């Protein structure tokens, strides 16, 4: 008890360097735990991009490629599904719902996705969250468009604004579908999924803007006006992919195999969980690099503490001599120093946690809005607890060094000190 008091007073007397050490430790703790949190939650976010979907169906390709273009809107499909294949799938008694996806157009760098209002009803992300509108309505007209949160924010669109979609997916597409402007019917709340960066339109709307196009180019003079388009049959001829929900999850394997081996139609069906897992393998390297960097930060923090502790050892020679003369055994003196390091580490850790939680509390909203990164204020995870234990262990180990030095100083056969 009194010993703790001595350790605390001793630390307090060296408060400038001790505070710096504490701060270094706190920062590296917060960094390490924060990176772990971001890592874990972006991983969870990644796996939560699409939930509740049993199968993703597209034209024949690899599972990762299909996942990339249908869910993450990265890359493009090499071929499409014919509409009647989709209709067949939609009408299959085992299928509960389908969300059609038609990709290929863009608006100022953001993907335009042709779909239907089933998207709002059936698409799930995170813990079964539905898409929610921050403003306006779902798709309610041939030329209505619902904007992802980021699209609306960065391009500063409000409901009822007009916009023109471009053919193709480049940022600088020369072919604008400017004969048929769309108007913003609604804006989605942030989801932390790729949908934040997408524009949702109806399949028929997409079909309409491509009236009079053949093989990706407009035929001269064949363009229709919006009014004419409304009169035409706009049933799409093909689709890029479809998200499928089944009545019973048990049928997923069966249906997958059936679709993959359908002789009449070259289709690929993947289970999102499996494909996500496969894709994650690619991302893992970055995950590990992040952890390595933060581990290095912790190492630097602990080394900093050690440097400060060792730097003070010469000045403390005298303190050790006094304690020794008072009858303190060498073991007790080294215990005192160890206690000091432990006190520092624990304080640094607590400060680091406070810093982390404070930081998350402050940055939670901006992170979600700016980066679509969902970082929650959570109790430390098992992994984080393990990191905390490692930090404590490292503190204790580094405390052993000055403790051993003090022990050896205390063993010197003399009372007082010689100059």
């Amino acid at each position, binding site marked *: 008890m009194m010993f703790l008091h001595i350790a605390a*007073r*001793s630390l307090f007397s060296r408060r400038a360097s001790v505070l710096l050490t504490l701060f270094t430790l706190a920062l590296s703790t917060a960094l390490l735990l924060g990176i772990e949190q971001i890592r874990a939650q972006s991983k969870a976010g990644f796996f939560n991009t699409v939930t509740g979907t049993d199968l993703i169906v597209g034209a024949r390709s690899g599972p990762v490629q299909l996942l990339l273009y249908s869910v993450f809107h990265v890359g493009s499909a090499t071929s499409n599904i014919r509409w009647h294949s989709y209709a067949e799938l939609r009408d299959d008694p085992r299928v509960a719902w389908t969300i059609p996806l038609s990709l290929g157009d863009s608006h100022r760098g953001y993907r335009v996705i042709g779909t239907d209002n089933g998207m709002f009803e059936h698409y799930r992300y995170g813990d079964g969250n539905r898409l929610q509108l921050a403003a306006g309505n779902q798709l309610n007209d041939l030329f209505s468009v619902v904007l992802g949160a980021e699209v609306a924010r960065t391009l500063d669109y409000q409901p009822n604004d007009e916009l023109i979609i471009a053919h193709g997916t480049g940022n600088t597409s020369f072919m604008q579908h400017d004969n048929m402007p769309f108007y913003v019917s609604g804006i989605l709340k942030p989801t932390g999924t790729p949908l934040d960066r997408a524009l949702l339109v109806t399949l028929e709307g997409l079909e309409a803007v491509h009236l009079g196009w053949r093989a990706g180019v407009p035929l001269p003079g064949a363009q229709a006006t919006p009014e004419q388009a409304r009169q035409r049959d706009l049933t799409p001829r093909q689709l890029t992919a479809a998200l499928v929900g089944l009545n019973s999850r048990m049928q997923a394997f069966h249906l997958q195999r059936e679709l993959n081996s359908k002789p009449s139609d070259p289709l690929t069906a993947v289970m999102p969980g499996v494909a996500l897992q496969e894709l994650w393998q690619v991302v893992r390297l970055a995950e590990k690099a992040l952890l390595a960097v933060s581990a290095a930060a912790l190492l630097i923090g602990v080394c900093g503490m050690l440097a400060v502790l060792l730097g003070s050892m010469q000045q403390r020679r005298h303190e050790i001599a006094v304690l*020794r003369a008072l*009858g*303190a055994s060498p073991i007790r003196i080294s215990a005192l120093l160890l206690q000091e390091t432990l006190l520092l580490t624990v304080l640094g850790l607590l400060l680091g946690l406070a810093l982390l939680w404070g930081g998350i509390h402050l940055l939670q909203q901006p992170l979600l809005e700016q980066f679509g990164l969902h970082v929650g204020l959570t109790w430390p995870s098992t992994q984080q607890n393990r990191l905390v234990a490692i930090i404590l262990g490292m503190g204790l180990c580094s405390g052993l060094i000055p403790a051993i030095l003090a022990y050896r100083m205390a063993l010197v*056969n003399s*009372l*007082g000190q010689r100059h």
Partner: protein
Amino acid sequence: MSPLIEIRQLAFAWPDNLPVLQIEHLQLERGEHLFIQGASGSGKSTLLNVLGGVLTGFTGEVRVNGLSLAQLSARQRDRLRADCMGVLFQQFNLLPYLSLEANVSLPCVFSRQRRAAAITRSGSVAAEAKRLLQRLGLSPQQYGKRPVAQLSIGQQQRVAAARALIGSPLLLIADEPTSALDGHSRDLFMQLLMEELQQADITLLLVSHDPALARYFSRTLKLEGNT
């Protein structure tokens, strides 16, 4: 009652060296004050370190309070020092980050015996620390708030003396306690120290090169050493 210190045929040498310390016979009774005078290198600090129980490897017999030091473990020697001895150095006796009172109270952290003695004497460790500081001319009202580093060396040595005296140890061993002091502070220090020792009936063993201190002592021993 056995003498407090009894030394027979003591010799100490560092490995492969001539002995730095040789004492045929030395006996110190309870309450006695002994001045050991000697030039540097005469082995006087070695003697204190042997008596303090931090230096082993001597030959001969050294008994403190009836216990043979050669037969005690390191832990037991530390215990003996904590319980029975006050130690005074030349300087840097105090922990700069503790208050005067906390510095004086320190021995009671390490020894239950001295803690009990202090409480018997004044009711509490803090009260005894205050009393001793008062006795040595450093009233806590006047000096209590000052950091140790702001005291003069003479004042610091008096605080150190108060610390060595708290809890009435049997023996006070002092190594050149006045060598950092000027003549006036030295006399003041010795006067106050001797008064308090007399009153508490504490045995003193003081080593110094300064012959001027001899007048405070009834017994003086001159160490020649091997130089």
